[in-house]
């Protein structure tokens, strides 16, 4: 490329494709414009969510005045271009490509997992290739087991989609092309059997070369009933499809051309509950509800269930307690009091399209993998600067993070204040009082306390100077921070005055929805009902409970995602027992409502929900990949009455500190039930941590956090830096939701022996 032309994407252009006049904007490829206008161009290697691969040459078109054929997937359209997508020449060209794809291709559709949804099958048929006219010497290429996926080089058409996804979306960079004519293959350079993110690569494979090992040969695609749903493991609420036969989920798939799933979404589907309708059980539940004064619940529930709980509160006067949602809701309220908007302005798309990113207060790779995937996209597609601010570095992010800034646990308030003041230097429209608070910060002291060097912040600000689209990602560490309210207000400055897209990553699946729908209380008192968490009378979808309720794969309803979108999910597996709605009806609430989804249209419009009924919610992606799932919450104007406070000195944590964070693929007691997900139940700490707390690898210890007794084996991981240990919460069953205080804490433990 001789010189880089600045692309003005707002410029309108007109292109004629097959005689159809198509309007579009500058910078779009011919293929994109054709698809947007409903014109079919065959492709084999094109994948909307990554950069054009241009390996198959199926997408060739003719452009008037241009010699030869043009690859429509990578060629940007110019104004006035006249394009032909179908001609005899082109057909011949495409047909010979298909003939080449079929060289030595095994005739094993009969057993192949992909049969029935195979691009090679379809296109071979489409271009009328009814015999294999060429062949060559076939090298010995056995099927390789890569753990979660298996690779059969004999079937691979070398389209390269899997490699691109591993590089540009999941960022694990495990797959590479090994080029060698007919002997070309895909190689797994990391060869890590526990790398489940390869499932993402398998999902885009157009043939049966890269398939899920667990699913291999278990069912033909056409035997499976496809249930559109949403992943309920974390707040991203990704689109997924449960593929079901005989009341069993065989696999999870997604619209892989446009969306992605993290390993937990793809392989974590074995959670379900089963029960029967026993009137006595219901009577007992009703009795418990009539004497209860509090309902405590987990925020991994649907919006409709949250609304039922809220209505129960209004009718019966219960206290509603959901700690994680409450902390998040309060944080958001403080945030709004400065930003003037009911919700934050960022979403996953804004992360992927930004070129400068800051993550603060989250172990993002495990807290919300989809945010990490979008950070990877930003890094790979826009060469984004990625600044990761956290007391603990994360090796999984090494290939995208451009700057790590480590701060002392507990010093988040000071850190955001430092950041804000550094960026505020350049901003002109900051109100005087805010500016004066930021200007009067004792920067030297703060930076000493938080251990963040002034020069580190300076480097950060400088590296952002030439960037255009900024994102600030705030994670679950700060919501339960003592100074959460002030942190929220400072963070809000980034949205309001500093031109950042801010994303407040909700700590659990539906913390955002619950915090908007329910008026939550601080503390339980009296007889407590637990809904999906422990109580004096417990309703839940797992473990020893008093009334078994359906799990989220057995329910229909909506959840509110990180994208501020209300998305529908459907019933994949049968459930015979009682739902929360049945209990509420027995208590006289919603007598006229037949199903839980009858509440969908009653979600509070005062919070931005729409009064649309469940059955009217759309759930699809159009050809261009635009999401039409449910609806976006309306962002409402709120009063800007929040006042910034001065930054408080921090409580330092010296000695051994534990950090509540789940291992990769695990989020909640639901994922803990999924056998395909990797488990790690130990307390894993650095060698310094072991030294400071006089523990050695294999020691059994017990300790107490938020009143919950833990008993774990201690393991040393030398890759962890600092005196920290990771304490998983996902395996604590129904108590998991009760653990919601600040994620860092000092460890006081009792030794119980050796493993």
């Amino acid at each position, binding site marked *: 490329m001789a010189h880089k032309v600045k692309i003005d994407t707002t410029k309108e252009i007109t292109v004629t494709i097959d005689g159809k006049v198509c309007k579009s904007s500058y910078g779009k490829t011919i293929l994109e414009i054709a698809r947007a206008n409903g014109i079919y161009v065959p492709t084999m290697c094109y994948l909307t969510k990554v950069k054009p691969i241009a390996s198959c040459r199926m997408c060739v078109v003719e452009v008037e005045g241009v010699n030869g054929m043009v690859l429509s997937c990578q060629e940007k359209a110019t104004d006035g271009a006249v394009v032909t997508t179908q001609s005899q020449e082109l057909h011949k060209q495409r047909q010979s490509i298909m003939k080449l794809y079929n060289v030595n291709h095994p005739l094993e559709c009969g*057993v192949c997992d992909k049969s029935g949804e195979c691009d090679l099958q379809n296109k071979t048929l489409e271009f009328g290739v009814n015999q294999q006219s060429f062949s060559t010497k076939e090298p010995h290429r056995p099927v390789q087991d890569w753990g979660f996926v298996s690779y059969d080089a004999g079937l691979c058409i070398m389209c390269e989609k899997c490699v691109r996804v591993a590089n540009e979306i999941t960022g694990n960079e495990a797959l590479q092309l090994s080029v060698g004519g007919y002997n070309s293959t895909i190689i797994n350079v990391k060869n890590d059997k526990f790398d489940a993110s390869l499932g993402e690569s398998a999902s885009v494979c157009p043939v049966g070369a890269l398939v899920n090992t667990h699913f*291999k*040969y*278990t069912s033909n695609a056409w035997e499976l009933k496809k249930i559109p749903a949403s992943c309920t493991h974390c707040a991203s609420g990704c689109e997924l499809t449960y593929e079901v036969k005989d009341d069993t989920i065989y696999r999870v798939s997604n619209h892989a051309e446009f969306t992605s799933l993290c390993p937990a979404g793809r392989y974590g589907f074995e959670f379900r509950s089963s029960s029967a309708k026993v009137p006595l059980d219901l009577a007992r539940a009703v009795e418990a509800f009539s004497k209860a004064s509090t309902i405590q619940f987990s925020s991994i529930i649907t919006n409709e269930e949250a609304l039922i709980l809220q209505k129960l509160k209004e009718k019966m006067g219960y206290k509603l307690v959901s700690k994680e949602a409450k902390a998040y809701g309060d944080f958001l309220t403080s945030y709004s009091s400065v930003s003037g908007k009911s919700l934050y302005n960022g979403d996953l798309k804004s992360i992927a399209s930004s070129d400068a990113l800051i993550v603060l207060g989250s172990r993002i790779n495990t807290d919300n993998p989809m945010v990490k995937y979008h950070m990877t996209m930003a890094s790979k597609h826009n060469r984004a600067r990625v600044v990761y601010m956290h007391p603990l570095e994360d090796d999984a992010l090494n290939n995208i993070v451009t700057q790590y800034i480590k701060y002392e646990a507990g010093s988040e308030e000071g850190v955001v204040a430092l950041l804000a003041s550094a960026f505020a230097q350049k901003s002109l429209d900051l109100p005087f009082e805010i500016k004066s608070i930021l200007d009067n910060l004792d920067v030297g002291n703060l930076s000493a306390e938080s251990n963040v060097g002034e020069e580190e912040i300076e480097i950060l600000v400088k590296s952002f100077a030439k960037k255009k689209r900024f994102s600030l990602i705030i994670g679950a560490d700060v919501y339960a921070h003592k100074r959460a309210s002030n942190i929220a207000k400072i963070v809000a400055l980034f949205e309001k005055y500093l031109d950042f897209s801010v994303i407040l990553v909700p700590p659990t699946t539906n913390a955002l929805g619950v915090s908007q729908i329910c008026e939550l209380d601080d503390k339980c008192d009296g007889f407590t009902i637990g809904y999906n968490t422990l109580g004096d009378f417990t309703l839940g979808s797992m473990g020893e409970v008093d009334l078994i309720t359906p799990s989220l794969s057995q329910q229909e309803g909506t959840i509110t995602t990180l994208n501020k979108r209300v998305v529908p999910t459907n019933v994949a597996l049968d459930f015979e027992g009682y739902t929360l709605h049945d209990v509420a009806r027995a208590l006289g609430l919603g007598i006229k409502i037949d199903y839980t989804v009858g509440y969908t249209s009653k979600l509070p419009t005062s919070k931005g929900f729409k009064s649309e009924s469940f059955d009217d919610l759309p759930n699809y992606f159009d050809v261009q990949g635009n999401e039409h799932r449910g609806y976006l919450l309306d962002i409402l104007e709120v009063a800007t009455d929040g006042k910034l406070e001065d930054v408080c000195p921090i409580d330092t944590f010296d000695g051994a500190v534990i950090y509540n964070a789940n291992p990769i693929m695990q989020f909640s007691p639901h994922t803990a039930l999924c056998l395909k997900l990797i488990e790690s139940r130990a307390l894993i700490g650095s060698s310094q941590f072991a030294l400071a707390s006089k523990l050695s690898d294999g020691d059994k210890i017990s300790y107490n956090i938020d009143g919950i007794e833990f008993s774990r084996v201690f393991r040393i991981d030398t890759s962890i830096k600092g005196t920290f240990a990771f304490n998983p919460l996902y395996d604590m069953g129904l108590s998991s939701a009760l653990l919601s205080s600040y994620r860092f804490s000092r460890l006081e433990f009792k030794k119980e022996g050796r493993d």
Partner: protein
Amino acid sequence: MSLEQFKDRNVGVQNYRQLDLPQSPTTAMCKVKQVAKRSLKGELFVGLGVTVREMVSTLFGKGLHTTQYPFEKLPISPRYRAIHEMLRLLESGNYRCIGCGLCEKICISNCISMETRYDENQRKEVSAYTINFGRCIFCGYCAEVCPELAIVHGGRYETASEQRASFSLFEDMLTPIDQLSLQQEYQGFGAVSPNADDNIKKTPLAY
């Protein structure tokens, strides 16, 4: 070819001739006379004689004309669609079914159900296969679609049993391994029965 000649229904010009048959009796007296004449002529005993002769030759001779079902069964035409059989590969003895699921898909009574898995030899193994013969209409689609000539219709037409499960499992339909050498290749639809030659007889022109 035009159908004109077949559509020509004008038969008026044919050369039909009336046979010289005796007159049918018209009066009551004539009818009585005819009956008496036929009864006394002894034709009845001619017929009885044939019966006795056949009886004697059956009991003491060799000329049995009926099949002694259920002790004796005639070979059935391969066109007949009875209980399915699952064939094996002659060389390896392995079952032929590759678990492609086409029979399951095509079955119009939806009575085939199967499960498959990835086995130790990296093959698709059929881990469960049943046909619900309470629903099967013996249409033969499954045998027609099978790419491996694995599922075929056998000759087992007696479908009375205490249990439906008696012949609906994969193992029951599979050629017993010790009888592999006796496994008959499926002739397919339209095939003639093995004893077709024997069954060919001249049709007598006059009785």
